[in-house]
């Protein structure tokens, strides 16, 4: 299994020591992507949360108890589990930048991609979106609402990438070499503590290039070999250890057989 490579690789580095779990990223994501509030959202396994914040615990009693918060967008895997399984090519990883797309008018809603994704980053649209009266005035004009019966997911606010490229063209710049910060998903922009850094992982002029190589950086479920484009970092070992499964060896840093 070999990760698909591009000249540009949009990625995130999320500093878990800075994340306060405020949930602003989740809200910004819902607003930016026109995700309608559900009439009955009591079943959390049916809500749409392209960006979801998990609470991690070191499972120790006070005074040693510690918690951390982990925002989870789509990992935009280099070797995505979801893409090859789709029977109708409704999801693909073929655009410069490596963002895993989701083509809503093509999706038949078979949910095979959801069964394939171990990060639970894919969501099914259980009902047609209904926006409460007045809310339609606040909808984002850039993102189309999805109908009932299709799968949807985080796409790193792809319309923002399109806009950033357009802007670069208008200003006579190179749309394939955007400056650091020229393109930024809504969750990154809104984060009050600056926990999320975004950019081209391959561009040395972008901060993420160095951050991803930090000794405290890690990716989720590295051993499965999905090669995510989202990195996390934490100075706390127990947090880093929760990024992957070590039950078989009991210690972090076990051999990576399947990458």
């Amino acid at each position, binding site marked *: 299994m070999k990760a698909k490579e591009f000249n540009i690789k949009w990625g995130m580095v999320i500093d878990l020591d800075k994340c306060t779990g405020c949930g602003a990223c989740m809200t910004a994501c819902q607003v930016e992507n026109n995700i309608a509030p559900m009439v009955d959202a009591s079943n959390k*396994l049916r809500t749409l949360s392209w960006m979801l914040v998990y609470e991690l615990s070191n499972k120790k009693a006070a005074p040693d108890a510690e918690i951390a918060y982990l925002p989870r967008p789509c990992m935009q895997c280099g070797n995505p*589990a979801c893409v090859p399984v789709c029977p109708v090519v409704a999801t693909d990883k073929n655009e410069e930048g490596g963002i895993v797309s989701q083509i809503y008018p093509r999706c038949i809603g*078979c949910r095979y991609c959801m069964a*394939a994704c171990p990060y*639970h980053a894919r969501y099914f649209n259980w009902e047609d979106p209904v926006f409460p009266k007045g809310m339609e005035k606040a909808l984002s004009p850039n993102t189309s609402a999805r109908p009932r019966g299709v799968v949807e997911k985080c796409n790193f606010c792809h319309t923002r990438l399109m806009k950033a490229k357009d802007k670069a063209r208008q200003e006579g710049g190179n749309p394939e070499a955007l400056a650091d910060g020229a393109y930024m998903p809504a969750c990154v922009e809104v984060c009050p503590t600056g926990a999320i850094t975004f950019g081209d992982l391959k561009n040395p002029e972008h901060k993420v290039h160095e951050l991803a190589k930090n000794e405290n950086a890690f990716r989720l479920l590295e051993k499965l070999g999905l090669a995510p484009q989202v990195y996390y970092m934490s100075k706390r070992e127990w947090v880093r250890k929760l990024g992957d499964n070590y039950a078989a060896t009991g210690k972090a840093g076990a051999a990576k057989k399947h990458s």
Partner: protein
Amino acid sequence: MDRALFPEGVERCSFGKFALWMGFITAFFLFGLFAMLLIFYKGIVVTGLDNYFGFGLWITFDLAVIALGAGAFFTGFLKYILRIKQLENIINLTVIVGFICYSGAMLVLTMDIGQPIRAWFGYWHPNVHSMLTEVIFCITCYCLVLIIEYVPLILEQKQLNKIPFLHHLAHNMHVNMALFAGIGAFLSTFHQGSLGGMYGVLIGRPYAFREGFFIWPWTFFLFVLSAVGCGPIFTVLVCTFMEKLTGRKLVDFKTKALMGKIAGTMLTVYIFFKILDTWAWANNYLPSVGMTFDQMFYGVIYGKWLMFTEIILCGLVPAIMLITPSIRNNPTMLYTAGILDCIGVTLNRYLFTVQAIAIPVLPFDSWQTYAPNWAEWATSGMIVAYGFLVMSLSYRYLPVFPQERMLNK
């Protein structure tokens, strides 16, 4: 009143009794139909599925009936290609069971997808890398083959067969049946395998993922073997159930025991490889991704007992029973082994469908549980009722069992 439509020289119950039976089954069918229409109208939000369990009862049901319906292609292969003549006593029944299973599975799939109106995208925009694409194509093509195999049987109905054109058409279709049996065997082998491949390629699901040969994970081959290991004996069980219901002998025990021997042989090969596969998975693959065998199970609902029931009680035990002549030749033991065999394969499909996605792969995630709700049960029941209706009509009006006259003299 419909005596003139009965096959030559056989007895059937009174029309009133038959109508009562059909009415009873139709009630279940209509209840399921109501659920189906509700699902088409409101979407699958009326089911018990959610974002963790995108696959549930329907997919388990589909995979199970497709495996149990494998008697059609494998018996057809043995009868028409390998020329095992004795199987002609039961071949018609295998075709009808296969047809019911495959057409029923396709109907369930149209409900299961979120956008039923886009179901044809599977043919129009196929992703050649997806095992599901292969399943879509092969199931459809094989269902057509089963229709081609079923049609001559319908044309042999006593009154229809009096029409010269239909008589000759049925005859010529029979003459060329070996060709369709061959095509059916090819198509069915591939999609049985692809159904297994669907799970084996899931690199993000340690319970299901397997390495394999070329593009096919080991589950590809295991699903083919398990299907041919249960399909023939399922047909025997259907036949015996029909005998109990109608009070008539339909197929001689010698043929049933032969089907048991065929299923038992394939089941033995399957269970040998299944045990090897499970051993390698638990001791090699799981540790390589940092997980343990124990982590794959949870409480009672997803406990180890399920896997041991599948492999030992409903795998190894019926395999031994079916390959041992003295056990196989005892009717009670043959049917017991057959029931265990079918439960084992159904359980296998359930575990790969539901348990595989219930396991929290992220270390900070937790186990979730799934229970199908009334809408899923009702629609699955509708398919079973549909099967009963087709089988009842076929039994009453078509010459399904060539031995029936002789056995009931």
